[in-house]
């Protein structure tokens, strides 16, 4: 069994890309169920951690900016570490990730 980092990113900035309150409620439920599904398979490698949505970004000129949106609109929505045999299995698990519902993506990295 290996450990994989799953990083969820999507555009949290563009107004048209944002879910309605009703969509958001269903969306949150989907997150809970997705986490629950991974946990039910005993494939959650670390406890879940919530992250502040705003954050700071440090540019190459050492200027600190509020909010993680610099040149790109996409930012990190969250990350988890799961247990999986290989990239194939990790990808299969990631396919259920609700970030995909609103045009987001999941970056997957295996722990070495």
């Amino acid at each position, binding site marked *: 069994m290996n450990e994989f980092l799953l990083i969820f990113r999507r555009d949290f900035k563009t107004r048209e890309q944002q879910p309605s309150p009703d969509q958001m409620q269903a969306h949150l*439920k989907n997150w*809970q*169920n997705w*986490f*629950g*599904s991974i*946990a*039910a*398979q*005993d494939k*959650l490698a670390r*406890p*879940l951690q919530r992250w502040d949505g705003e954050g700071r970004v440090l540019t190459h000129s050492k200027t600190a900016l509020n909010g993680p949106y610099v040149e790109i609109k996409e930012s990190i929505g969250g990350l988890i570490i799961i247990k999986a045999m290989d990239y194939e299995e990790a990808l299969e698990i990631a396919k259920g990730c609700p970030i995909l519902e609103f045009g987001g993506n999941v970056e997957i990295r295996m722990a070495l």
Partner: protein
Amino acid sequence: MDEQELLPHLFRAEYQKMVSVLCYHFGIWHIEIAEDIVSETFLSATETWSLKGIPENPSAWLYTVAKNKTKNYLKRNSLFEQKISEEIRYNTLPSIELEIDMSHKNIMDSQLAMIFTVCNPAISNDSQVALALNLLCGFGIQEIADAFLTNKEVIYKRIIRAKEKLKEAKIKIEQPTKAEINNRLEPVLTTIYLLFSEGYYSTSQNTTLRKDLCIEAIRLNYLLVENESTNKPQVNALLALMCFHASRFEARTNQNGEIVLYEDQNERLWDRELMAKGEYFLNEAANGNTLTKFHLEAGIAYWHTHKEDTTEKWENILDLYNHLLILEYSSVAALNRTFALAKTNRKQQAIQEAEKLNLTDNHFYYTLLGNLYTDLDKKKALTHFETALKLAYTASDKAIILKNIRRLKQDLFLID
């Protein structure tokens, strides 16, 4: 209550109080002396009361006799001079050297100290439960053996070994400090829950004994709620959980001692009073920011006190199981989560999720798959139940699986 009933009743109620007070007084090295003195006290009671009748206040009589026996023991035994006196002088104030304090407060303090001593991770779970039943609940070796479905020798050895371990680890029988309580509360609650589960899920046919185990677990938990220093949210959560479960005690077995499944239970046999108590303690548990597995399990148990299948009920249960699994994995929670998912989402989706669990050595896994397939593909359902039957080892589980197999075979015959 006549004498036939009074003695065993008093024995349970007073045995553990007196043992706790004496152990608290003597320390871990002399638990056996405390037990002997209490046993002798009950022997005297049986003898004297059969001649002179039962005294007006039997408890007070027992305390006086136990106190006197302790004093005599201490005076008589040279051990007092060498060993105990040293410890007593060291542990307690000189003025109460010989006085055994049987006040309500000291009984409470002693019991709390004993709970924290017995529920110590230095000894195995099985031993903790056995020792708790023996020392904290006044159960005889035979009764414990019956509850564990084993023989007296096994339990006897287990208890002796547990006491040795406590002595080796030099565990002191003392009030846990405020700082210690936070660290040590979890193993204590785990033992209490184990004790409860032993009674609730035991396959022992002795219903009275099983019920007694549940009542004792609730009583020990209640002691922690009564005590200000241990009256924490998670303690209330566990108490709520046990109240909710215990409310279905009468409904979950039939006259033959067979398990009645939740769906088939007679709701009128559910104990409303215990359900209300559960709700009270669940509210108490909501104080502060602590969210433990006991909170989540109590929440699940709360929703199970509503028999009617509503979307709200199952969505809440699913959500609580999600949180529970994220907090701590267990195969039981994984299977139950999938069952809840089948109630809120499509069966097909629940089957997909169930198959991901891959618990191929667990008969409950195949029972779940059998249940989920029953409405969709009866032949597949039958295969799953047959696999479950091969893996099941208790008579009650086998009986439930067989019932399903029979029903499916009948249906398949009718369809063909």
